[in-house]
């Protein structure tokens, strides 16, 4: 047994081995090593996974491209369909107008010429035995929604009948354009 007889401020204690710090350093060292190995392993794993998902990614991009092209085509055919519908509506309105004319002609009247052109000009010439019949027919024309302001352009007295010309603006053809 050693007894240090020096006064306290002159004593030089023998340094003990720092077990706690050494253990802590050792544990931290292992932890760091483990984390490093695990981390780089994870990096490798993620890289492999990314590499494997590359074909699927390319496929997805291809599908996205196909979708964009298909949407463009759909837009184009939809425009064509809308255009066709508009033309068909116009054509149906045309038929409707002719049908109305067919049912509104008085018995003492007959047409000699009818023209409906692309600008919507409606020109009707015909013959009638009485002016009263012509007046009634004109009134009925004014009721037709497809005709705007039918105007009696001329009436000429022939032997037993009157020859007339009516002009109007047909709405249907303008509605047909896109």
């Amino acid at each position: 047994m050693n007894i240090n007889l020096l006064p306290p401020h002159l004593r030089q204690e023998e340094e003990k081995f720092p077990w706690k710090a050494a253990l802590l350093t050792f544990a931290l060292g292992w932890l760091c090593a483990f984390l490093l190995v695990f981390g780089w392993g994870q990096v490798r794993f993620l890289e492999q996974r990314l590499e494997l998902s590359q074909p699927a990614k390319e496929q997805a991009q291809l599908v996205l491209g196909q979708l964009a092209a298909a949407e463009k085509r759909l837009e184009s055919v939809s425009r064509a369909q809308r255009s066709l519908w508009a033309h068909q509506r116009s054509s149906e309105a045309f038929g409707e107008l002719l049908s109305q004319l067919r049912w509104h002609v008085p018995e003492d009247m007959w047409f000699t010429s009818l023209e409906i052109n692309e600008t919507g000009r409606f020109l009707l010439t015909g013959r009638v035995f009485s002016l009263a019949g012509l007046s009634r027919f004109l009134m009925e024309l004014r009721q037709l929604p497809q005709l705007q302001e039918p105007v009696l352009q001329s009436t000429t007295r022939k032997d037993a009948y009157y020859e007339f010309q009516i002009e109007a603006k047909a709405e249907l053809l303008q509605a047909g354009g896109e």
Partner: protein
Amino acid sequence: MWRKKSFLAFASVLLVLALFLPLGLRLWRLAEEERAVEEVLAQGREAARKLQEVSAQEDRIRSQLQAERSLSAVLQKLVAARAVDVTLAKITPDQLHREGELLMLPLAVEYLGSYPALLETMERLSSETAFLIRTCSFKEDKGSLKASVLLWVPWGDGP
């Protein structure tokens, strides 16, 4: 003594940082890449589902457009549209032209007959989806009545 220990501790921290920094950056970059790939894959799945819908819709519209491809089919329809005692006198096809998205064949058609029968024929033509009436005129010509119609016929495969 303490100075030496502090220096060692500081050096250790620096070493650990130097070891972990590249790893952290790499992991962060990979995670970003993976997220981007996941996003593209999800978009791809959604696009595949949408593509089916869009294709079905396109097929449906195309089948509705059903344009004509032969003059003989058009002729058959023109003949079928005649009312009783109406004669198909003349058909003159013009150059194909594009009307917006649609390809149209202009057809100048002449029918002969009485007024009511010609008007009925026009009605039938207008209800026929294959024909679009553009202009129409009726004229008396040497005792007979002639109806001249300009028709547009949607033609070909569409857009």
